[in-house]
């Protein structure tokens, strides 16, 4: 569990972060979101002491980070950033091995860990381990960046707009992989982003910041249903938030028995693992109020109707 | 009156401040060249007993004139040739020559100026000619390299745009490429001038006229006072030209950035 308590940072005349209180449960992803200059990156950097707070503190599992050597603290926390910052003069292998070596792991341990991580990120050891970063694509570089951040098995990982520089397709794929890895390893992630779609897709908790202040921290569903007036509602998108809300739930949530509808050969079908937003889009596109829902094997397992979607998409 | 003073002073002050690098060496140089004799008491202790304190075989103004003449003539010629050559090899028709020209300019940096001077003597004999030729030859390199660098750093889209609005190749060169490359070219000329002032000093060993002869005379007769006079005047001259060209460069690049 990470607790930010009264965190404040003043740069000269400007207060970058103003008395920020936030609690992130272990094993969750928390997204800090806001426009550029809102203090979200500063907040993140105060957690691994790249920036020292003017006042307030951070507790990790109840332990005050001020009681730890900054370097020791950082070696326990994974860190991935937008520019990625892979060391250009070191191979992929050596990049991933950076923190384990700082922690004086034995070379067998390091070797084993690099194999594990490349496996985890679905990258072939023989193809990639001895490449230099400039030979990799942007997506591959960011994967290595994540592997490097995870190398010393941190319980907490900080990510500063990690997917900001990637094209939309690669970004979406990496977001999926990150979520999967996070669930598998059970680590806590605090992620800075300015992309509300990314926050909704990844986060268990979204913390909206503006002008150095925390405006609202809530689950994506809660944030979409009950955004505070002003900046938060603007951010979650007035008219579009209904669609975003639908995108949070899988079709499986609203599946009804096929008997309720008159399905025939022409009724379009949709995969059960997609979201309600996808279902609505398909209904609009096919001009069909009802869709046949099929499971992974292609067998019909129910139906979904536009009436159900309408009732699910409403605000309150 | 006070209002007038308030507006005039800061401008004059700013001018003096910006040009101090040029003005200070210039004033010192003039003083040393014209009123050297006023320093006699100071220099007495550096002079062997019975030897002259101030260099007398020629006037400093005369020597400065010769020194500058060598530098100006050779660098003017070098600029003309080097800039033309760099323009030619950077045109599409000069492409065959470009790789060699590049690496020659790069290799040429390793050539010691003294070596060029020493090699010019067997070719043309003693006097001011070998110095002139050596200054000219060595002066080519920095100007050529910088012109090439300046021309190649003009962004392709700017040239593209110039062509797009209907400029011919000559117009692109004169109105776009050269003005944009000018500060870098001037840097090259400055480097050449500074190196030339130094090489011309050594030129006195091959009997070229110039300030080097004061230093050499001091070395030959163990007269530290001569060495000091020659050394200080040459150093001031180099500083003066360095500052002058830097001012020109910064004025030019200021004009471009705004």
């Amino acid at each position, binding site marked *: 569990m990470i607790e930010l308590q009264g965190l404040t940072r003043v740069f000269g005349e400007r207060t970058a972060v103003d008395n920020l209180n936030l609690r992130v449960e272990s094993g969750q992803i928390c997204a800090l979101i806001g426009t550029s200059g809102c203090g979200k990156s500063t907040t993140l950097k105060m957690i691994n002491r790249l920036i020292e707070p003017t006042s307030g503190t951070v507790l990790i599992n109840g332990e005050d980070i001020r009681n730890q050597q900054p370097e020791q603290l950082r070696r326990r926390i994974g860190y991935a950033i937008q*520019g990625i910052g892979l060391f*250009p003069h070191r191979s992929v292998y050596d990049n991933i091995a950076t923190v384990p070596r700082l922690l004086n792991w034995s070379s067998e341990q390091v070797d084993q860990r690099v194999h594990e991580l490349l496996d985890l990120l679905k990258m072939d050891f023989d193809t990639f381990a001895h490449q230099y970063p400039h030979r990799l694509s942007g997506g591959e570089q960011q994967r290595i960046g994540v592997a490097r951040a995870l190398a010393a098995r941190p319980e907490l990982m900080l990510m500063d707009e990690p997917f900001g520089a990637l094209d939309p397709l690669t970004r979406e794929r990496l977001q999926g992989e990150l979520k999967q890895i996070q669930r598998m390893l059970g680590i806590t992630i605090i992620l800075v982003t300015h992309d509300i779609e990314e926050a909704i897709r990844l986060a268990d908790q979204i913390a909206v910041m503006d002008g150095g202040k925390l405006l609202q921290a809530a689950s994506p569903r809660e944030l979409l249903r009950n955004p505070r007036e002003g900046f938060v509602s603007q951010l979650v998108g007035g008219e579009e938030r209904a669609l975003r809300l639908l995108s949070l739930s899988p079709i499986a949530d609203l599946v009804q028995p096929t008997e309720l509808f008159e399905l025939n050969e022409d009724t379009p079908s949709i995969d059960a693992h997609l979201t309600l937003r996808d279902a609505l889009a398909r209904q609009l596109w096919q001009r069909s109020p009802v869709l046949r829902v099929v499971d992974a094997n292609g067998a019909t397992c129910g139906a979904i109707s536009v009436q159900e979607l309408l009732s699910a998409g409403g605000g309150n | 009156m006070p209002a007038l003073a308030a507006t005039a002073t800061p401008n004059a002050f700013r001018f003096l401040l910006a040009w101090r690098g040029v003005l200070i060496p210039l004033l010192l140089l003039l003083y040393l060249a014209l009123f050297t004799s006023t320093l006699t008491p100071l220099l007495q202790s550096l002079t062997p007993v019975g030897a002259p304190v101030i260099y007398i075989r020629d006037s400093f103004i005369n020597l400065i004139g010769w020194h500058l003449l060598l530098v100006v003539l050779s660098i003017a010629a070098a600029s003309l040739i080097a800039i033309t050559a760099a323009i030619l090899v950077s045109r599409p028709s000069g492409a065959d020559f470009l790789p060699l020209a590049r690496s020659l300019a790069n290799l040429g940096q390793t050539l010691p100026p003294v*070596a060029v001077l020493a090699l010019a003597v067997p070719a043309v004999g003693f006097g001011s000619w070998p110095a002139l030729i050596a200054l000219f030859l060595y002066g080519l390199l920095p100007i050529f390299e910088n012109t090439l660098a300046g021309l190649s750093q003009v962004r392709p889209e700017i040239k593209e745009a110039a062509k797009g609005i209907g400029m011919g190749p000559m117009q692109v060169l004169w109105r776009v490429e050269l003005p944009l490359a000018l500060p870098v070219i001037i840097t090259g000329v400055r480097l050449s001038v500074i190196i030339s002032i130094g090489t011309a000093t050594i030129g006195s060993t091959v009997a070229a006229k110039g300030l*080097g002869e004061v230093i050499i005379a001091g*070395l030959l007769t163990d007269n530290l006072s001569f060495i*000091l006079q020659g050394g200080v005047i040459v*150093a001031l001259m*180099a500083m003066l030209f360095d500052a002058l060209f830097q001012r020109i460069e910064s004025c030019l690049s200021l004009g471009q950035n705004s």
Partner: protein
Amino acid sequence: MPFRIDRLGLTLAVAVALVLVLLPLLNLQPNRILPGSGVPLGELIAQPGAQRFILLMIPTAILVCLRVHPALKLGLSALSLLVLIYALGSDSDALLAGSSGFARLALGSGFWALLLLLGLMMTDALIKLELGALLRLLLIVGYLAALFALLANGLWDRLSLMLEYHNQPTFWQQGVRHLLLALGSILPALIVGVPLGIRCHRSPRVRAALIPVLSLLQTIPSLAMFGLLMIPLSLLALSFPLLAEFGIRGIGVAPAVLALFLYSLLPIVSNTAAGFDGLDPAVLQAARGMGMSRRQMLWQIELPLALPVMLSGLRIVVTMNIGLVAVAGLIGGGGYGTYIFQGLGQTATDLVLLGTLPTILLAFLAALLIDTLIAMTQREAR
């Protein structure tokens, strides 16, 4: 396959032909000092060595004009130069026959022009071959070694340049001294300059104070600098005779080494600062965020990544110093400059060459060596 013309090659080939017709390859001098007259081409071409050279030069010149594989051009022009050098040596006996004992056969302007032109052909072919840096270095050093082996074999011993060489028993000691003087001031300059460069990178105020001073030092002409440094050093030696015993005297090595040190500072400091300025901020942030200490970042990240730019500063310094040491010969610093200025004093051209050629060669080899290092450190980092 249609042959296409290489315009550079054509220019060089025409120049070779003009040189052969217009300039003498050798000069016959009545003695060491007096200028001689060129050996006419007709007389030279009667000799077997010169004939072999001409026979090889014709196909070389033709092939250089065409766009053929650069390896072929390189091989032929390199071989032509070797044959030229061999020919001048082997023909010298016959050409000297019938002259007085004082007569000397000196290399003429035609030879130097051919050397330049063949050198240009080789350079161009070498660039177009696009070899790896290390291979290129080995090739050049190997070729030079072959040249030296020819000379060491006594091939040119009847030519004036080598006679002059045999007159100088300390030639190789002077070379060692030249290098020691040039490199000796660089080590302290590195020890002082690199930390100063890092300071400049970290603090704009230090940079604003330091760089103009170092640039000002750089503008002072070498002879003036040597002279100006002699004054305080002489006074120092006069007041402290003990220092004089340790070699700190106005004349000689001390002002030269001090001047070289001062000149070396600017390239080292400014290139170190530039190398550090050019580091990717994301890399540094990542390194710090992963828990590297300041020292670990410096040694593991910053220095290795800034190294290529720092090395190009070193290249400037090394080549500059090799040239400056030659000037120091004038104030009794030793090294090859001694030969240059002695030769100028005696109007003995070949003694001047004996000082100039090794100076140029040393500077060239040092630059080549550092270029290879730069290429190797850059290869992976990019």
